[in-house]
């Protein structure tokens, strides 16, 4: 089986074993990512507990419309990513590139919307420092420090995801992926979905604190 041999590295017995090892490696990496963002969420939790009123006032200054649009974009991009992996597993090679390009487009759209939102935030004096909106309580600066750090790091992860998916797109176009071999695509998908999961918590915690009052 010369074809089979070319995709299995010599330390593995079968392609399945190799794929399982790669999956475990990716999940280990994602565990470190959970702890990375977990530390930031923890900082958020502590300061929100101490300065709840300031956090609520600050949160009402975030833009829910941009946040909602981006949530839908990201959830949809997770669907298209899952369909790209599904297509590879089913050997629908042309569908893989189609779903991947749609995922790339949605990821880029997220960053564009975020760019507009950041622009509005800067114009609204929501950057901590000497120019910060004086009408807001001073602890609101802690909220916005967390807002910029968490959404910024999330956007950076998304940018890395876009780079990863661009590589996957060209590999798919070369016909690298098939029903027998699509591990890199699956792992890139896991990363993409993880970035989506982080946003699931960023959105309610940053945009929706006491919106009703």
């Amino acid at each position, binding site marked *: 089986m010369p074809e089979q041999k070319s995709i299995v590295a010599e330390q593995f017995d079968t392609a399945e074993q190799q794929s399982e090892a790669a999956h475990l490696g990716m999940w280990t990496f994602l565990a470190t990512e959970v702890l990375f963002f977990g530390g930031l969420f923890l900082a958020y939790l502590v300061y929100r507990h101490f300065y709840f009123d300031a956090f609520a006032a600050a949160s009402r200054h975030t833009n829910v419309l941009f946040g909602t649009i981006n949530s839908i974009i990201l959830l949809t991009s997770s669907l298209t990513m*899952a*369909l790209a992996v*599904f297509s590879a597993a089913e050997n629908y090679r042309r569908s893989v590139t189609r779903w991947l390009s749609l995922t790339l487009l949605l990821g880029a759209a997220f960053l564009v919307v975020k760019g507009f939102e950041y622009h509005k935030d800067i114009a609204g004096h929501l950057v901590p420092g000497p120019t910060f909106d004086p009408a807001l309580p001073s602890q609101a600066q802690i909220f916005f420090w967390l807002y910029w750090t968490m959404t910024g790091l999330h956007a950076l992860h998304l940018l890395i995801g876009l780079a990863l998916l661009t590589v996957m797109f060209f590999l798919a176009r070369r016909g690298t992926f098939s029903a027998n071999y699509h591990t890199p695509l699956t792992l890139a998908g896991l990363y993409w979905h993880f970035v989506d999961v982080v946003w*699931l918590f960023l959105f309610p915690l940053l945009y929706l604190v006491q919106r009703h009052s």
Partner: protein
Amino acid sequence: MNRPTKKIFVLTWLALVVMHFTILGSAYLDLKSFGTPIILVLAVVQMFLILLYFMEVRYTARLVWIFAGAGFFWLLIQWTLTLSDYLMRQWH
């Protein structure tokens, strides 16, 4: 290996979007002290939908379940130890 179908992916996406708007709507209702817990429980359900179906954890080996769960277990340790300090500081 058992794999999710296209239909399952679309249904998962639909559930995620519906839950997103439920979260958004409930944020504008005065639910007293239940508001934040309801929103967070919905977000956790959304996370599980993505983990189980989009990330296909439901269809993978049990060893992957352990690796996927390990990150959250360590997160629990990180949060419990830190919060047990901060939340018990009487001077604040």
